[in-house]
């Protein structure tokens, strides 16, 4: 039984289709991250699952129940919003218990649940403060707590960290991950921060224009992106794209006057007049000597030290490329070098269909 199952979900705002016959199955206890550019429909999908939007077509199942028409509060879900949406005039305790009181739960039960959630989230000392007197991270926790006390199996998060500064974000990210491994309930998490997606997810659904482009484990998404969009969207600094042609029965990639042997590349071997070779900055090495077949001559343009690593910008075969090197290695602009490409880790795309080959 799937924890959440979205079947042929379609949602139109007026005549504008925001979600297009979408299917998504989430296993019990799985952590799914919805990733995609702004406006691609992530929040909309989440709201449909929560029952906050009436869908146009399709079905939604949660825990084996068809909840397509059920009220949000009946679906056994908890939701955490980007702005937290805490009730500002109630104390933290009030925020946590308001839903329970409303369900006419006995007082003692409410108290014990609030106490438990507060303990898990370490917000016991804050219970009598109002949200206005809390820091961003604390508010965040209260918002999670509101879902926690309701003892739901499915947690929905809509960009819960995007209002916070980088440091806090990193901390809370780890905290959410711990929470998940402790509670082990199903989580659907919307973000457009890649680091969050890559570190948190069991599986990532990369969306674009209301369609899921790829749904896979983070490492698969990172290393074997299904299409150009996913390849370009994931990874920072971004993947380098070299337009060229696959020749020699799929054994070589022709880039201007250079030819690169596709040795070790694990895709299908067919010729293609218009293809794109994708290589991540960390899969290129900078050397002073050429390596026959898998290297390109290049000229250093800019060297950006970023603490532990440096990002080196170069020009090779008329294309701008970026390469990641340890920070100790400083390269002067104008230095001619050779780029050694790690082809087993490269990705090849059909320029016409934009799909990986």
């Amino acid at each position, binding site marked *: 039984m799937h924890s959440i199952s979205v079947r042929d979900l379609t949602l139109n705002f007026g005549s504008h289709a925001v979600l297009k016959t979408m299917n998504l199955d989430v296993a019990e206890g799985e952590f799914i991250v919805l990733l995609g550019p702004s406006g691609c429909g992530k929040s909309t999908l989440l709201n449909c699952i929560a029952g906050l939007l009436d869908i146009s077509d399709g079905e939604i199942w949660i825990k084996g129940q*068809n909840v397509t028409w059920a009220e949000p509060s009946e679906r056994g879900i908890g939701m955490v919003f980007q702005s937290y949406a805490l009730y500002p005039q109630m104390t933290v305790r009030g925020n946590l218990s308001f839903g329970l009181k409303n369900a006419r739960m006995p007082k003692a039960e409410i108290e014990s649940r609030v106490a438990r959630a507060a303990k898990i989230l370490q917000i016991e000392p804050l219970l009598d403060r109002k949200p206005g007197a809390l820091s961003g991270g604390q508010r965040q926790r209260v918002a999670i707590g509101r879902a926690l006390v309701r003892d739901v199996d499915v947690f929905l998060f809509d960009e819960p960290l995007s209002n916070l500064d980088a440091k806090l974000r990193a901390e809370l990210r780890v905290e959410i991950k711990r929470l998940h491994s402790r509670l082990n309930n199903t989580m659907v998490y919307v973000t457009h921060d890649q680091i969050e997606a890559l570190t948190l997810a069991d599986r990532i659904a990369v969306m674009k224009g209301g369609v899921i482009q790829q749904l896979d484990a983070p490492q698969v998404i990172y290393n074997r992106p299904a299409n150009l969009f996913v390849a370009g969207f994931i990874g920072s600094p971004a993947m380098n794209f070299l337009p060229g042609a696959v020749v020699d029965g799929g054994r070589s990639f022709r880039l201007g006057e250079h030819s690169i042997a596709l040795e070790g590349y694990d895709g299908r071997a067919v010729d293609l007049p218009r293809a794109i070779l994708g290589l991540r900055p960390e899969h290129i090495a900078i050397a002073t000597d050429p390596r026959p077949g898998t290297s390109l001559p290049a000229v250093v343009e800019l060297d950006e030290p970023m603490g532990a690593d440096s990002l080196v910008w170069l020009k090779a075969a008329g294309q701008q490329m970026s390469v990641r090197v340890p920070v100790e290695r400083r390269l002067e602009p104008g230095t001619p070098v050779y780029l050694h490409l790690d082809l087993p880790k490269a990705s090849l795309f059909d320029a016409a269909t934009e799909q990986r080959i």
Partner: protein
Amino acid sequence: MCPGPIWNSEANAVADLTKGPRGAKPRKILSRRNIMLYGILFVISVYYLLPLYVMVVTSLKGMPEIRLGNIFSPPVEITFQPWVKAWAQACTGLNCDGLSRGFWNSVQITVPSVILSIAVAAVNGYALSLWKFRGAETFFAILIVGAFIPYQVMIYPIVIILREIGIYGTLWGLVLVHTIFGMPILTLLFRNYFSSVPEELFKAARVDGAGFWGIFLRIMVPMSLPIFVVALILQVTGIWNDFLFGVIYTRPDTYPMTVQLNNIVNSVQGVKEYNVNMAATLLTGLVPLIIYFISGKLFVRGIAAGAVKG
């Protein structure tokens, strides 16, 4: 398994669990909620529309019909005579040219008063929100308290002040009075609105070398349409509808329309000519009403921007 969801708990108890609702949730147009909602709205609308209806209907009846029928029944015989009379014939004392005289006076009073009062208040609000100086808030607080002072209290001191400046009885005296009494609320609106303009915009303009007036005229005014609309509507209705100042600070040949209205309504020649009174009333209210109907949307938007973000 926890108890089934409520919507199929009885009727579909035996149904296959894989079947179930699909697609859009059915929405009955005639649901109980909708009937209640629109029913209440309709009833309330009747209460709000009734007076307008009565005014229109009465103004189209002849006097005999009014004496007989009830005020809600539609006119049996529609006559526009009351309108003609109210506009051009009704008498006050020796003058028998109805409201028409007051109309142009009202226009002449309203236009400069509205412009000046809005201009002054906009500058005030701008100075208060972006160029704070010591004491400004105190003056503003006094101004706001001033909004509560009944006009009657101020009539006499203002007569004296206007006399001393020597503009009593002139158009400019009246314009000044409207500017003064419009100032508190308008300043509040503008201040709140300009406070919600990003401060960075103001800083950028200063770095660009724009001064107090440059920033106001070139940057702030062009981006404040909604609040100007609100101010415009408030002032046009307020000044157009004003009676007290119009009668005290003008002279008969410049009486605004409301004073003429009062004269017509209160100059009873034997019996009260309700139909003429209603026509006169409608004619007087027409200008602000038209403005409301035209710019209602902007008004609501501006109110949201100026009043709520306080």
